[in-house]
């Protein structure tokens, strides 16, 4: 059985808010921008304590991205905040030209990613953002698993030079990462060691992968669980080391199959060590309204779906 305990469910966006506040206190160069979603992004504590370093742009995400790029000219470290849909697809060209191609030290922080945004429905439930952002040359892409990891990743980003995308979410989910564990960009974490298959998970699906590993263990199947919180740069070594041992993989993410972690794992294995893969991801469809749990169940993004995928990949 996996050794992690839920220290009390919390939303990953609150981890971002706590990390940003801590950065405000520890790093005088950090500034924040928000496009009219300060409460939803949990940026209000930073805005209240550091009003001179907080920029409310109104509902103008394209302008916010350009302004963030400009703030880096003069030495500031801008963190932008809005929903993931408005942080990526809506402003892709602004990010591409003014931030990525211009190599600006902007941290694009995106909440309410994926289906777990819930009742607002598909207009807001972006499931393509990991793919969009990992395609941009030089862009770091981070998808932390829980509150503590999101907080640690936020803090780590301030010390990392270069454009970065930080993806987190709305619902309260299990918080299991030790509070004092520093975030190392580009390093995957082997959470559970196993021998029969590798479960490569990211974001909200990491806890589901841990729960799935318990179910599999009860059936005599030893699953290795790896948290790929950094999507890019991808920890190829961690994946290959694990698959050399297990020989098969299940990927799990709250994202489209196209363009997500599954694609990346398949590409990496195809180039270095071909192995059977099953992907737990949304299969080329939009989301819809519903509670987060209902949606994750309907679209097959939970521990039960990971167990099923593990049984499939084991028989291949």
């Amino acid at each position, binding site marked *: 059985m996996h050794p992690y305990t839920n220290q009390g469910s919390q939303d990953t966006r609150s981890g971002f808010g706590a990390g940003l506040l801590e950065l405000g206190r520890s790093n005088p160069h950090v500034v924040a921008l928000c496009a009219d979603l300060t409460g939803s992004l949990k940026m209000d504590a930073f805005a209240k304590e550091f009003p001179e370093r907080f920029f409310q742009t109104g509902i*103008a995400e394209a302008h916010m991205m350009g302004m963030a790029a400009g703030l880096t000219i003069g030495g500031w470290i801008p963190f932008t905040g809005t929903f993931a849909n408005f942080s990526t697809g809506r402003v892709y060209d602004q990010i591409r030209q003014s931030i990525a191609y211009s190599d600006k030290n902007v941290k694009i922080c995106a909440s309410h990613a994926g289906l777990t945004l819930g009742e607002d429905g598909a207009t807001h439930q972006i499931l393509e953002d990991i793919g969009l952002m990992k395609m941009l040359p030089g862009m770091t892409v981070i998808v932390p698993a829980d509150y503590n990891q999101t907080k640690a990743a936020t803090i780590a980003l301030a010390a990392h030079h270069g454009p970065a995308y930080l993806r987190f979410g709305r619902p309260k989910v299990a918080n299991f990462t030790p509070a004092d564990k520093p975030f190392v960009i580009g390093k995957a974490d082997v959470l559970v060691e196993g021998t029969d298959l590798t479960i490569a998970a990211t974001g909200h699906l990491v806890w589901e992968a841990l729960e799935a590993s318990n179910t599999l263990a009860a059936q005599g199947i030893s699953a290795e669980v790896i948290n790929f919180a950094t999507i890019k740069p991808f920890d190829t070594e961690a994946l290959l080391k694990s698959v050399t041992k297990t020989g098969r993989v299940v990927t799990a993410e709250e994202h489209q199959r196209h363009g997500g972690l599954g694609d990346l794992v398949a590409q990496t294995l195809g180039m270095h060590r071909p192995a059977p893969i099953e992907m737990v991801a949304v299969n080329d469809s939009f989301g819809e309204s519903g509670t987060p749990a209902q949606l994750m169940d309907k679209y097959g993004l939970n521990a039960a779906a990971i167990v099923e995928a593990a049984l499939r990949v084991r028989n291949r």
Partner: protein
Amino acid sequence: MASIYDYPSQIRRDILRMVHKPQSGHPGGSMGCTEFFTALYFDVLRHNPSAFTMDGRGEDLFFLSNGHISPVLYSTLARSGYFPVSELSTFRLINTRLQGHPTTHDGLPGVRIASGSLGQGLSVAVGAAQAKKLNGDKHLVYTLHGDGELQEGQIWEAAMYAGAKKVDNLIATVDANGQQIDGSTDEVLPMGDLGAKFAAFGWDVMHLEHGNDLDAVRAALREAGTRTGQGKPVVIIMKTAMGHGVDFMAGTHKWHGVAPNDDELARALAQCPETLGDY
């Protein structure tokens, strides 16, 4: 010692020769803005061409938002001393730092942001202007935009922000040549009273009728400087003629993105004396 009046003719020669070699680039808008670049870089801007830094602290900054007029920017930067004038011969050729549209990607001194996809430069300038305020840096931020570029929505997001938040260390200039790729701006998408639009967004609006008169541009930029720090961003609506300086290129959108052939180059250069030495 070069006189400021020697620059426009030489910069136009550079522009024409730069686009002729690769048979590619945008001479029309470049030639229309030659007096603006001369006035800004050789008179008004407080800058350090020999010690370029990305941060630009303690300097005035300029952002070219309509990046397709890169020839006039590159010529001006080179003749200001940011990089060797000889490098102008590499414009748009493989492995050049002088990309078709300006970029920071290859470390070209004088460029602080990529531009080309239109409408993004005003937001960047607003951010840089806010950075100057945070740094207690009293220097100014300048931008240039095409009039057709103002059809992009992001411009008005930035304009609304700059007016509302009193970004008053910012001077934007609009190259009002009335032309864009598909024809005149009135044919493509009439934009009405641009000055009234900026005024409605909380800007201090200046009109410059003769944007190809070097002394008039210098005077306008100087006056704009005196109007900063008053709680409003400043915009200069500057009338120019696309292709100014060569009779058969002036006043038409035909030369927006077309390079002269050998014969046209010879005829055009004959109208632009070599005042400072060709690269």
